[in-house]
């Protein structure tokens, strides 16, 4: 498993825990699919929760709304951001 794949799997578990996504398993989250406006039913409060989680777990801060929209597009874009910053 590559570093990117490992980061995606780790993020899946962390997001499920942070957002208390009951009845959702990591396998059910498509890494390429849009994270918001999806079956997961995430909203703006969840976006704030993910920002807090990234800061707490990885020490990463989102600098602007525009940057956040790109990073939070999908789990894959988020994993790319994390991998790049902590490399």
């Amino acid at each position, binding site marked *: 498993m590559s570093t990117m794949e490992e980061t995606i799997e780790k993020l899946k578990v962390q997001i499920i825990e942070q957002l208390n*996504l*009951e*009845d959702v398993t990591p396998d059910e989250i498509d890494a390429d699919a849009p994270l918001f406006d999806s079956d997961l*039913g995430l909203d703006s*409060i969840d976006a*704030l*929760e993910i920002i*807090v989680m990234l800061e*707490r777990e990885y020490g990463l801060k989102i600098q602007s709304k525009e940057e956040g929209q790109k990073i939070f597009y999908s789990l894959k874009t988020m994993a790319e951001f994390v991998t790049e910053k902590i490399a």
Partner: protein
Amino acid sequence: MNNQVYINALACISPQDTLNAEQFLQSSEFVSGSPMRSIEPTYKEHIDRRYLRRMGRMVRMGVAAATKALADADIKNPDAILVGTGMGCLEDTEKFLRAIYESDENIASPNQFIQSTHNNVAAQIALMLGCYNYNFTYVHRGFSFESAMLDAILHVQEAGENKTDILVGACDELTDMYLEVTSKLNIWKSKVPRHSLKYNMGIKSEQGEGAAFFAVSNQRSQNTIASLDALRMVYKPQSSARLTDEIDHFLARQSLTLDDIDLVLLGYDGGGQKGDVYDEVVNSVFDGKNQAVYKHLCGEYKTAGAFATWLSCEMIRQQHVPEFVKWNAFEIDTIRRVLIFNNYNSANFVLSLLSHV
């Protein structure tokens, strides 16, 4: 009161199986515990999972009870949502404060903050319904539920002939930290002499929790359960004579005497009331009346009065007084009026009159 205040539906989550009200009242047994924790339903049957995942225990209890009461009354958009809570969302408050502490006051979860606010139950109900009407939460210690109910009464009065549907209720929860902290205050029952009669009966109260909600209206429905005819709060009366006067005036304002009351539901908490103002008044004013108690069923908490109201309504609806609530021995054929005479911590006294309609 000008308009009648009709209770058209109700639901209760408590340490007893109160969501199955008929079965519970007709049974001969009740659940005991120390402390008294609620029997919680499968929440997915009552609450959309999109909202459920964020809710703490108290919010789940409150929203589930409220949802059932609204569904039973067939109300989609109440004219007001009124909630009483003595302590608010304790579990989420603890989580929020712990997260702040552990992050050295740097990172706090927005959801934990939102969920920790005391008005969260009323807000979640409104969110789920898309209801933008009057929304208020009362946090008035031992008068929290009664304050919410008083607001509901005022809404009904102001509505005149226009139909108004109000959702009103209360909820409080127990947490381990709350139990730990309050146990240090020596305020709970194990620290004071229990009322001897209750002790002999094996009935004593512990700390409790629960949620009870009511759909009230100025108009009757086919399913109307009871009417709330009067409500009075009395804070720390100086003497038993003052409290006795309050009861006399309360009944006189309704053009009633004690002979018109079929059952008195008492708020003995199994603790230190023996010989105090409350006990004195019960023994003098209500001597010889049909008396029942309820706090051995739900435990003691600041909004236990909501459980008392639920129980009174169900006894009126089912025209049945379970043996396990009887304080003295009596048989009763028809329950027309129930007077709740409640007490919280020998400070908050409540008179509430419910009638069969």
